[in-house]
């Protein structure tokens, strides 16, 4: 359980800083930033887009239908594939305990939950893939990558127009026992009827995690990875139940990931544009 220690430290630091309130914004009416407690929010996005697949030989992942479901109770929340429990929230700080999927798995299987409604081109399983080196060719069995969930504390802070997020996560499904630290800041560039939000972030993946997804036993045993990313998200409500959403996301892959014989690119791009229909 040693990897939990940094997570708990992060949470403690966050709690200590929670009294240092800065410029505050308050949730006064339902908006993309504020949700009603105790109400389900179910919607579906229909559009066009895709996520490039850095895994050699695997198809890019088309994004056509993106379902979204969320429920925020007084403390418990479910937001698509993530769920959690809020320990403390005020206008400046939120401290949660969260459970979140490992996002690397989407590149390996078309039946991943995250691809459930995103029709894959099939043939994403790498088991038995031939790994080609420069001067020899070896058949290397690549074991299945399973669904993993990570759990840990999360600190969200709001400072003026900036929203920061820091997650210290430990893999809790017993596959690789690695950990991941996710850090991001977001700020609105346009905040009127149209909303344009820019996010910048970093994802630290421990060596265990990187090896599980991108390593090959005896051939490639990478260390930890630090992947920066940039995301731009645009939304515009058209009516009470219909809106337009679009986003562009690019993640730069650390050398320890991109140097893997399984990986053929140094980044992952995701784009989507479509209509959002509120069902509930």
């Amino acid at each position, binding site marked *: 359980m040693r990897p939990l220690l940094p997570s708990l430290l992060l949470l403690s630091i966050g709690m200590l800083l929670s009294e240092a309130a800065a410029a505050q914004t308050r*949730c*006064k*009416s*339902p908006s*993309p*930033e*504020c*949700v*009603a*407690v*105790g109400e389900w929010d179910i919607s579906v996005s229909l559009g066009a887009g895709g*996520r490039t697949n850095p895994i050699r030989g695997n198809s890019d992942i088309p*994004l056509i239908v*993106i379902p*979204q479901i*969320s429920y*925020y109770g*007084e403390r418990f*929340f479910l*937001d*698509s*594939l*993530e769920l*959690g429990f*809020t320990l403390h*929230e005020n206008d400046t700080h*939120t401290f*949660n305990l969260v459970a*979140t999927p490992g*996002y690397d798995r989407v590149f390996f299987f078309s039946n991943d939950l*995250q691809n459930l409604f*995103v029709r894959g081109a099939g043939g994403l399983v790498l088991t038995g893939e031939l790994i080609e080196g420069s001067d020899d060719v070896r058949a290397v069995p690549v074991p299945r990558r399973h669904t993993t969930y990570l759990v840990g504390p*999360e600190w*969200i802070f*709001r400072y003026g127009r900036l*929203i920061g*997020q820091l997650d210290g996560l430990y893999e809790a499904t017993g596959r690789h026992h690695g950990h991941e630290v*996710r850090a*991001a800041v*977001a700020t609105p560039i346009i905040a009127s009827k149209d909303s344009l939000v820019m*996010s910048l*972030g970093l*994802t630290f993946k421990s060596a265990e995690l990187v090896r599980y997804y991108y390593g090959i036993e005896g051939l490639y045993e990478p260390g930890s990875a630090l992947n920066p*990313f940039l*995301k731009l*998200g645009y939304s515009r409500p058209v009516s009470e139940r219909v809106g337009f*959403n679009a*986003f562009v*996301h690019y993640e730069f892959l650390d050398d320890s990931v991109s140097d893997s014989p399984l990986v053929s690119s140094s980044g992952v791009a*995701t784009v*989507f544009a479509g209509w959002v229909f509120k069902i509930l």
Partner: protein
Amino acid sequence: MPVVTPESIELKVRPRVCTLSADDEFCQTVVRAQWRSPRDESLCLLIVGQPHIKHCWERHSKGTYSVELTFSEDLLVELRDPELRDVLASEAVKVIREALRLRYRRRQPWSIFY
């Protein structure tokens, strides 16, 4: 508790409370008023803020009146003398608004789900 005047006119109004959810602006319900007195009375039933509602009885010891109403504030039902000067009994239907509680939505920049 029904209001009992010194003359012992007892007035009951149903419902006692109308609860509005966050999405509701108005209560729309049938309001039923029932009164009784130990002796015959001549009186009129009025509802404050609803001038079109007036129902009178002459020399009755009890009476019932139902009406469908739309209202957004507390509703005050009154029994007055036939000249509408004195209030003989009154009872309210309380409007309770369910407060909409809001909290911050998490951002998930790592997810394709926005």
